[in-house]
């Protein structure tokens, strides 16, 4: 039985501790009122003199051009400065919340992606992978704590303790109100806080229920492998889960991510987010497997298994790019204002990140993992995996930040704090779950094939 090294646990707790400190600092340093923002701008101008005055100017220009929250800002020219300050204040106070949200979702989606991958292996009755089942079960266990925190953040947003979701603004569906937005009002039948929270809760319960059951079946199969009763049960549950998952995952991606831009929609958004979570999940399976092998565990896993995981990392990265491009090209080509604003904001305010993350997520795996021999070399897989994870964090970042903090984005302690916290929690929880059961699912009917797997 695998025992988590105390070094790893210590590392996880240090990450969590530092993460909490940085996150709290991020919340404290967010401006408390519009006056704080005024003071901050004045300080900046005084400190840096001319250089920064120019930067502040560009801020102002960008603030007007923000097509996102409608053209209202630009029209009332009277409160030029006041509007800008208010706008900046909203963005800066959203920043710690949005940073928390991105990091929380990113690690949650890794767990969910691994769960989907595991269900695929079960439903396909794959012969190569049962040797890795305990690793996948361990990683997917993160959807319990990750899901609970995710739900708390959604609940807090729904209770108006932050304003990262524009569509929750007061009076948005009330024709007399200054916040009235006809497009969002038309979507209120679906996009209203109680139903939105209900959906989130139902999906999280459904996913966790499957994970709970299938883990139980997997352990039971080891105890009593006769007749493969538990194996068949796991097969049926996995097949049913995949149907449930692809529908709920799609709706989840509209609810939790696409609704940050409530005017905009993309019909393949669910697939796009799915590709992101799938490739991140598979990458983490590969990284954890390599780590455990380095500790002398998983002696039945050979480089053919790593090769297969690397093939999946390569293939799903290409699949992700295909979806990214399909979404981008159609909208770029047709150039319809209400659709194209999504990409205009990203190209203008997030240029480097937006195109940089495509390069990291596409070119990097393409070139590093194309060669068949490289897919069996651990450090190639680790390097590619590291960049894939960074790239997909940035992918989620670029999905969420433009609608919440707009052009006031930055990647600093405010952003790294939550990442460190959730990374620590992820490591701690995942390795704890992995250490709770024997790493070899000895009762699985395909375990012999998996042990002898050779490419």
């Amino acid at each position, binding site marked *: 039985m695998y025992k988590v090294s105390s070094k790893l646990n210590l590392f996880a707790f240090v990450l969590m501790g530092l993460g909490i400190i940085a996150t709290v600092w991020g919340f404290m340093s967010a401006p408390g009122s519009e006056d704080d923002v005024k003071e901050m701008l004045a300080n900046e101008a005084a400190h840096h003199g001319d250089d920064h005055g120019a930067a502040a100017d560009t801020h102002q220009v960008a603030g007007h051009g923000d097509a996102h929250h409608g053209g209202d800002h630009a029209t009332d020219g009277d409160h030029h400065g006041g509007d800008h300050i208010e706008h900046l204040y909203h963005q800066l106070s959203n920043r710690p919340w949005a940073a928390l949200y991105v990091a929380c979702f990113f690690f949650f989606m890794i767990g969910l992606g691994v769960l989907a991958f595991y269900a695929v292996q079960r439903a396909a009755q794959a012969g190569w992978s049962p040797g890795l089942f305990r690793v996948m079960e361990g990683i997917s266990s993160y959807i319990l704590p990750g899901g609970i925190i995710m739900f708390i953040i959604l609940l807090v947003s729904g209770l108006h303790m932050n304003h990262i979701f524009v569509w929750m603004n007061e009076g948005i569906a009330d024709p007399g109100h200054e916040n009235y937005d006809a497009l969002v009002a038309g979507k209120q039948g679906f996009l209203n806080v109680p139903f939105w929270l209900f959906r989130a809760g139902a999906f999280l319960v459904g996913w966790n229920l499957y994970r709970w059951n299938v883990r139980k079946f997997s352990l039971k199969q080891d105890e009593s492998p006769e007749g493969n009763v538990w194996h068949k049960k796991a097969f049926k549950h996995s097949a049913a889960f995949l149907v449930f998952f692809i529908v709920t995952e799609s709706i989840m991606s509209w609810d939790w991510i696409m609704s940050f831009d409530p005017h905009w929609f993309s019909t393949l958004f669910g697939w796009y987010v799915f590709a992101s979570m799938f490739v991140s999940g598979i990458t983490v399976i590969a990284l954890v497997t390599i780590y455990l092998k380095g500790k002398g565990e998983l002696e039945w896993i050979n480089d053919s298994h790593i090769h297969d995981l690397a093939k999946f990392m390569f293939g799903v990265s290409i699949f992700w790019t295909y979806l990214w*491009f399909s979404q*981008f*090209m159609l909208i*770029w*080509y*047709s*150039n319809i204002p209400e659709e194209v604003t999504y990409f205009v904001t990203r190209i203008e305010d997030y240029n480097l990140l937006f195109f940089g993350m495509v390069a990291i997520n596409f070119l990097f795996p393409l070139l590093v993992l*194309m060669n*068949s021999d490289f897919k069996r070399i651990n450090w190639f897989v680790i390097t590619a995996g590291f960049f894939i994870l960074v790239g997909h964090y940035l992918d989620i970042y670029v999905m969420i930040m433009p609608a919440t903090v707009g052009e006031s984005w930055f990647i600093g302690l405010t952003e790294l704090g939550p990442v460190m916290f959730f990374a620590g929690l992820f490591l701690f929880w995942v390795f704890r779950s992995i250490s709770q059961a024997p790493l070899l699912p000895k009762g699985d009917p395909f375990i012999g094939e998996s042990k002898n797997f*050779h490419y």
Partner: protein
Amino acid sequence: MSDKTIHAFYTDDDVLLSAVKQVREKHYHIEEVFTPFPVHGLEKAMGIADTRLAINAFLYGIVGLTVATVMMNYIMIEDWPQNIGGKPSFSYIENMPAFVPIMFELTVFFAAHLMVITFYLRSRLWPFKKAENPDVRTTDDHFLMEVDVTGKDVEEVTKFLQDTGAVEINLIDKDAH
């Protein structure tokens, strides 16, 4: 000195695979193995060097990508400038998203077709070519291993091959042809 080979027949791919390994351990020279279907791991067991087809495929893909880029730059930008998606910038790089599907398709097209042609040439296969396999049963349900026995004790090799599971063994004297 006469050129002699033995044709050993097998009826099962697993038996064949283990026979190939044993023959190589004994340091007999296997000239060729004929099988009715691709046998997984056979090249490795026979000690054949890895295929370089993959490197070719990569190079062919780059050729395809280049052809697509040059072709569309000439057609859509230089020779008859087109207004693409209401954005008449007449620049290849600015209109690139519109060209990506064709760039992708031609990359795949070139890689796939040239790879097949290379494979045929390398395997010396062309239309109206006469089949090379020495026994028609290798296209049905038999596996054939050609072992060079020039200067070796034919009796001993035959006995050894029978032990590896061969169902039929013929001695072929190439000079007789």
